[in-house]
């Protein structure tokens, strides 16, 4: 049995090195060129952490652990190989749920066998600090788990993206959260099983209740937030086990998720608290759509589009999630290649919420072999629309709506948008004039003099234009 004596110095150093490897893994992501090396640092760090743990434990039962790792590893590897890039948000949500559940299981195991973790005295009484950290870790882990399961079901389409509003949900959620904290405080005085399991159960319930009222449009914020929670759960477990690798990692992941949530909120001009409160998305479609129908607009053909783009010096492509839904990435890249062959400069403009999670659209374009140095973020490219001859909008809508800058009554007023309307010509690919964007609002851009609407399926339209360019 392990006594509470500190681990040998080399073990502490090994965990510290693992933690540093994880810092380097994130640091590598500052540019695509260094990112692959960064990912290798991450793997090395994990190997060091796992290896060190195995070396200092009794070897009996090692084969069971080896089987467990083999099963989990094979499943993980298989999923990673097969998953479609459009399904990344669901996958990340599913992975978050596993981190959360693993934290709960580790917490429960530590509760049942505290001596193995060196967190109890000889009589089996768990130390005060450890009870607190264990309680918090299990609660955060359980919230991460059930919240991520709901996020997964919504993103995967097994559950409607519409917010589900439970009556008096704020009171209910606050009540449960308060009960959890109160029970954890009580747990520090009395380590009875009913307290531990009630905390776990309530945390599962509140994770579920917190995410069901949040609409599909806010899911990028939700998965970032759950990313953060999974980090804090790992950190709390690190406190319990006094493990520096876990604490460093937990802090990194926790801050990472928090920063991504902030970036997503800012990109949608949404207040973090109002996202958490839920209820947004899927209910705004009614009013604005009617005013739209009678306004004059110009319709163009693939031939017109090809002609305009061939004459251009600078074409900026504005892709949105619709591009991925229509599987048009490859056709668009082909279009861009033909234009480049004719001496046209082609750039891509990406809004932070163009995809379904932070950076999603960049991955989808990279998958279609679009070089990353042709892809620009909103703040880097917005000034260039004024000198672009053509802005080619495909699969995006709300992120190009000029009303966000001018119309104070618009639900998206204040959201940073791409200044597409400043281009000499705007080519807007859209299925039909009737439908509206994700936020359910009409886009003033359709009726501008310099806009030409290309009605049809995104992929077919891009392919038609390619034919006309050839």
């Amino acid at each position: 049995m392990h006594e509470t004596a500190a681990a040998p110095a080399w073990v502490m150093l090994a965990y510290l090195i693992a933690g540093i490897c994880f810092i380097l893994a994130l640091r590598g992501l500052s540019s695509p060129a260094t990112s692959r090396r960064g990912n290798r640092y991450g793997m090395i760090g994990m190997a060091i952490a796992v290896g060190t743990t195995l070396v200092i434990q009794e070897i009996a039962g090692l084969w069971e652990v080896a089987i467990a790792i083999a099963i989990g590893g094979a499943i993980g590897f298989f999923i990673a190989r097969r998953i479609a890039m459009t399904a990344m948000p669901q996958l990340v949500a599913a992975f978050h749920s596993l981190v959360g559940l693993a934290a709960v299981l580790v917490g429960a195991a530590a509760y049942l066998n505290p001596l193995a973790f060196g967190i109890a005295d000889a009589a089996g009484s768990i130390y005060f600090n450890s009870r607190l950290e264990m309680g918090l870790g299990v609660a955060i882990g359980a919230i991460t788990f059930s919240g991520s399961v709901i996020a997964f079901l919504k993103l995967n389409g097994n559950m409607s993206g519409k917010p589900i509003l439970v009556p008096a949900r704020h009171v209910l959620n606050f009540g449960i959260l308060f009960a959890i904290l109160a029970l954890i405080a009580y747990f520090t005085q009395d380590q009875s099983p009913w307290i531990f399991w009630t905390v776990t159960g309530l945390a599962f319930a509140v994770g579920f209740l917190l995410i069901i009222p949040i609409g599909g449009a806010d899911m990028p914020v939700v998965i970032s937030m759950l990313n953060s929670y999974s980090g804090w759960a790992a950190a709390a477990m690190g406190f319990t086990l006094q493990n520096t690798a876990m604490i460093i990692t937990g802090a990194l992941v926790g801050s990472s998720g928090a920063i991504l949530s902030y970036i997503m909120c800012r990109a949608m001009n949404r207040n973090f608290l109002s996202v958490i409160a839920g209820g947004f998305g899927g209910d705004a479609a009614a009013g604005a759509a009617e005013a739209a129908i009678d306004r004059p607009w110009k319709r163009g053909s693939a031939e017109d589009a090809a002609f305009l783009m061939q004459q251009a010096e600078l074409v900026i492509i504005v892709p949105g999630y619709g591009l991925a839904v229509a599987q048009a990435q490859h056709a668009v890249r082909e279009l861009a290649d033909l234009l480049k062959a004719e001496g046209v400069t082609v750039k891509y403009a990406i809004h932070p919420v163009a995809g379904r999670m932070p950076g999603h659209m960049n991955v989808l374009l990279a998958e279609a072999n679009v070089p990353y140095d042709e892809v620009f973020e909103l703040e880097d490219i917005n000034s260039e629309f004024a000198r672009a001859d053509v802005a080619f909008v495909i699969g995006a809508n709300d992120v190009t709506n000029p009303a966000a800058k001018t119309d104070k009554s618009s639900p998206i007023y204040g959201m940073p948008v791409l200044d597409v309307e400043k281009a000499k010509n705007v080519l807007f690919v859209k299925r039909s004039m009737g439908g509206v964007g994700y936020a359910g609002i009409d886009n003033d851009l359709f009726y501008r003099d310099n806009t030409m609407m290309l009605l049809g399926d995104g992929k077919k339209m891009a392919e038609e234009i390619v034919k006309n360019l050839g």
Partner: protein
Amino acid sequence: MDFISILSIFVLSCFVGYYVVWSVTPALHTPLMSVTNAISSVIVVGALIAALAAAVPAAKWLGLAAVVLASVNIFGGFAVTARMLAMYKKKER
């Protein structure tokens, strides 16, 4: 280690995390999420300790289950990150 040392490591790591994550290019935010997913599965360390201690069978089985879950995440997370990062290419010429 005493609580204050651990807390110090935690607080300093939060600052490191803050600055490192802001330096991540927005184009790599999706790989950032998948790799943070993989590394937060370092809780496998706790799972291994539980799984290798035979004294309490229930704790051992919970530990083994946690090892399976964390391994899905570790292997899946690093592999899918590597797959994404391999797609990012520079312009030819």
